[in-house]
Each structure stands twice: as C-alpha cells, then as structure tokens.
C-alpha cells in the first residue's frame, strides 16, 4: 500500500509577531515547523505502516528549498521518502494553485491508495487544499478524520462534526484530512534524524518535471488576490470592575447590564 502525505512547512505561529504597519507576518527569525495537522496526518500514515505489511509512506510538499528540512523531519519520524515541488513558477500560489501543483505531484508519483492531508495550515487556516486536491484527482474525500480503520480495500473513518460525528466508509484510493484529535504524533527519533540525511531520500522537482499546468500555478494562476491585510485595531472601551462584597457587586452588575439593555 502506498500512502502520500501532503505536508506544509509553516512558521511556528506560537512565536510569530505581526508587523503593526504592514499588517503581515514577521517571518524573520521565526522557526519553521511541519504544520501541526499535517503531523497528525503523517502520524496516522506511520501507524498504518507500523501495523500493516508493505506500506510505503511518501511525503509530498510544495515550497521553497528550505522546506527540505520539513520533509527530512517527516522521514526522521518514519516516512520512506519525500518529494519537494520547488520552483519559482509555484511562488505566490493560493489554495487553487497549490492544489493544482500538488495534483501534478501526485500524478508524478502515480501509484497510491491513500492521500493524507492535514485539515488546514496554521498560517492560512483555509482548509481548502485537501478537498481541492481530491477534486482535481476525482477522488472520494473524507475530511476532519478523528478516527480511522483500514479494512481490506476500504477505509472507515469517523468524521468530526461540531456536535457529533459521521462514520463514513470509502473505497481506496481516497483522500483524507486529519484533525488533531486523530492521534498524538511521535517525535522524530535521533537515529531517524541522522538516517534522513543519508542517501537520496528527497527528490526536488520543478513545475516542468511534474508536468504542471502553468496556467493554474503560481501567482498568475491564483484566482485569489489579497487586496489588503491588516491587524484589527484593539478595543478601546474601558472595563469596569465591581469590588467588595460579592452580593453587592452582583447587584451593581445587574443594574449596569440593565442600563445597557443587555438583560
């Protein structure tokens, strides 16, 4: 069985700051990580590999040359090999252009049973790339997977909803997107780290190499245009604190809420 796991290298948003003038992320000096949901997708693929014979896990990413580190980290966790789509032609891609590029990467790989993506990336929060990729490839998709079983040639997934879940069955090949409830990702092993940099485990491919549709990749191929980005201004209103005896305070609070027609 072949499992393709799509990952994105993202800035660690726990440490990210916003430029107050430009309203954009300050990426300088911010460490890059594998997008958290993608780590859950990778972990699930690795668990399938651990519990089944002949499973190969291939990591696919689109990004600048530095994204190599994210792929190596995935290999250090246990993936078999990686493909990095890296080309100036991909720069500035929105979700449409990204999923178009990834679809070309998947076609280049050819043989697969499952494509696993994270639900969404922490730097964009769109949750569009996984579903779009399934559409490009004409695959069934199950998003928000929080539990997964493999039975013969099909997958049975628990798909999380706001107030419950679906249990969905689909024949492979299938595309799945993972949420963090699915599992707790392992750490890369130290031996895995040293192995990941040995030999030829990561292939870097250009748009031409994967025969990408040049009309639908990169900034030019992206229908989304960012007009302006900004940080919402902080609230200027003053809080009011009621102190002292709590019964009195609650009375005062209720009076104030009534005055404001909130209750």
């Amino acid at each position, binding site marked *: 069985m072949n499992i393709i796991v799509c990952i994105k290298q993202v800035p660690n948003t726990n440490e990210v700051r916003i430029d107050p003038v430009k309203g954009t992320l300050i990426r300088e000096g911010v*460490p890059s990580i594998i997008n958290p949901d993608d780590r859950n997708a990778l972990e699930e693929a690795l668990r399938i590999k651990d519990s089944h014979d002949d499973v190969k896990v291939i990591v696919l990413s689109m990004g600048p040359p530095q994204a190599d*580190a994210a792929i*190596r*980290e995935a290999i*250090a966790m246990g993936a078999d090999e990686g493909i990095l789509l890296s080309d100036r032609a991909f720069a500035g891609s929105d979700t449409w252009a990204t999923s178009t590029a990834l679809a070309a990467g998947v076609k280049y790989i050819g043989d697969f049973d499952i494509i696993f993506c994270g639900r969404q990336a922490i730097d964009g929060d769109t949750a569009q790339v996984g579903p779009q990729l399934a559409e490009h490839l004409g695959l069934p998709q199950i998003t928000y997977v929080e539990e997964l079983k493999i039975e013969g040639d099909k997958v049975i997934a628990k798909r999380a909803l706001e107030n419950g879940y679906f249990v969905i069955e689909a024949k492979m090949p299938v595309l799945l997107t993972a949420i963090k409830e699915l599992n707790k990702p*392992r*750490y*890369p*092993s*130290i*031996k*895995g*780290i*040293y*192995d*990941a*940099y040995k030999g030829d485990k990561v292939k870097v491919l250009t748009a031409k190499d994967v025969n990408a549709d040049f009309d639908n990749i990169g900034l030019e191929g992206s229908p989304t245009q960012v007009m302006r980005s900004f940080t919402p201004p902080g609230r200027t209103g003053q809080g009011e604190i009621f102190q002292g005896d709590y019964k009195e305070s609650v009375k005062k609070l209720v009076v104030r809420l009534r005055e404001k027609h909130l209750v």
Partner: protein
Amino acid sequence: MDFSLTKEQLMVRNVMKEFAENEVKPIAAEIDETKRFPRETVEKMAKYNMMGIPFPTEYGGAGGDDLAYVIAVEELSKCCATTGVILSAHTSLACWPIYKYGTEEQKQKYLVPLAKGEYLGAFALTEPNAGTDAASQQTSAVFDGENYILNGTKIFITNGGEADVYIVFAMTDKSKGNKGISAFIVEKGFKGFSIGKIEDKMGIRASSTAELIFQDCVVPKENLLGNEGEGFKIAMSTLDGGRIGIAAQALGIAEGALDEAIKYVKERQQFGRPLAKFQGLQWMIADMATEIEAARYLVYRAAYNKSNGLPYNKEAAMAKLFASRCAMDVTTKCVQLFGGYGYTKDYPVERMMRDAKITEIYEGTSQVQQMVIAAALLK
C-alpha cells in the same frame, strides 16, 4: 572558523526542545519535590534513541555525534537538570568506557542494550575516603582463577539503584597505587552486590544517588574492562568526556533560568512599569546572556574536539569550570530578579539554583578542573 551547527544537530535541538517541554517540564517540579526517579522519561528517551546518541548504530546507538549529545543534555537541563544528569551519566560514564575499552563481546552484551536504552548505566568510582583523591580506592578485587571477588563500598553513585549496569573500579593490586586499579562491568543482579543508602540531596533530587555495597560480589573474569591495572586511566579518560556532559547540564540550567527571568521581568510591574524597563536589571540580563554565550562556546568546542579526534582534556575542564560557575551565578541572579517569589516553589528558579550547585562539585570539583587546566599548561 565555522560556528554553525549541522542540519542534523539543528534538528536534534528542535526535537529535544519539544521533547523537554512536552514530556520533561510538566513533571520537573513534582519529581524534585517527591524525589521520584522519572522512569517513564527514561523509557520515552529510549524509544527515540536518545540514550545512545553518539554511538554507532551497529552498537545500538543513534549514529550521531558528541555535539548532538551535548545539545540533548542542554535542552533537557533547561527544563529539568535531573533528567539531564540521568542521560549524561548513562551516556558518558557508562556507555562510553565500554565503547572505548570494551571487547567486541562486552560491546554486544552491554553496550548494545545500554545505547538502546533497554539498560540504564552508572559509574562507580567515589568511595567514602576516595573522592577527589580517586586513587585511594579501598574496594578490592581478588582473582580466584575464574572470577573476581569484589569487596567494598561506593558512594554518591548517580543512577545508583536504578541502573542495570555499573562500571565499578576496584584495587586488584594495592601495592601499585594508581596502577593497581582495574575496571569491571557489574550487573545489578550479581551475587553479593546490593544498594545501600539513597542520598537526600539539595538539588537534582529525583536523580538517584546511591551507595553500592559489594560483599564477596562475584564478577566473571570476562567482565574485566580493559586490562588489569588500567582502571585509573579508564576512569580519568571517562571523566574527561563526562565533564563535557556536566558542562552541558550547567549550561542548560543557566539558560533555563534566564528564559524564566526574561519572561518574568517583562510581566512583573513595579513603580508603574515592567521590571524590564529598569536599566540596572537590563544590565544584569545582558551580563547573564553574555556569560551563557561564552559558556556555550566552551562546551560546544570541547564536544566538537571530542567528536573530531582532537584533544579535549583541558577543553572539557575549562568548559565545566566556566559553565558550572555560570550556572551558579546566573541562577542566583535570577532568583534575585524574582525577589521574594523567586525564593518560593511557585516559580522554578529556586529549583534551578539548587540544581546548579552540584555542577561545581561532581565529576571533578571546580578545583579539580583548575588542577587539570594548570597541569596541561605547566607541564
């Protein structure tokens, strides 16, 4: 001169940092309070090949290097110095002498499970009357034709009681002084070997520090490490490397404390502004960061030398002397920055200050490091 880490070392740093913050930090205060040995952490470290970082994969190691190992001890010690020393004593003092001096059989039998983390290791040199004066060993080993019979007592043994394999030093020929000491690989189950008192310590409280008692303990002759009479050389060369691990532990403690202090001075308000706005305190922070950076390069340099087959005896001593002093100085200042809160267990800096002190004492006191450095300069 290249100060950059390799891609592998950078990734080791990221992984160790994440591991320490998620798995080690949350229990650091609890295990300090209760003196509970963090067995679960050792098992987790074993799972991710952290227990044999600098050893080749054919001997169960991770196939890494000494600098990566030092970074691992540093990152663990930022959150918990106890966990740092468990790894350091295991790797530098138990695995390494077998790797360096062991026969192929000894490596297969002991190094492989040690480096995989299936066994935990310890090193037993110190005795009640042989501390800094390590040559005054009283423990004796008498060869009876088939086995060595060990008699004596070791004290202050890190990982003692928790470890499965011990490197034990004993006199095989008292008339020869230093040259009469030999090293042995002793398993915890050997007849006549028992654990005595467990120390109740000021710092690194969850690290097990034990007395080892040998009463007609039977050690098979194939467990002699190196040759008879090579024990002192084995002990001293092992400690040369061990010092780099302890220096890394000290470095980590100092960094951990400074991280906490920087967070605190930005939040704590006095006289209507955060402490971070007071220049006198800014100078303290600047001095501490500078001292830490200097310590870091001494420690990394010693590890680099060791990995690259360059001399590291003097470099390791300098690294340990400086980094342990830095740990003591920085943690004391950090408690000062926290004021009264720093003196309570509500914040981790008091633990870090207690943990720091031992780095000036074990694996050679600061005065021993000065002796080693002076000896190298004045020979």
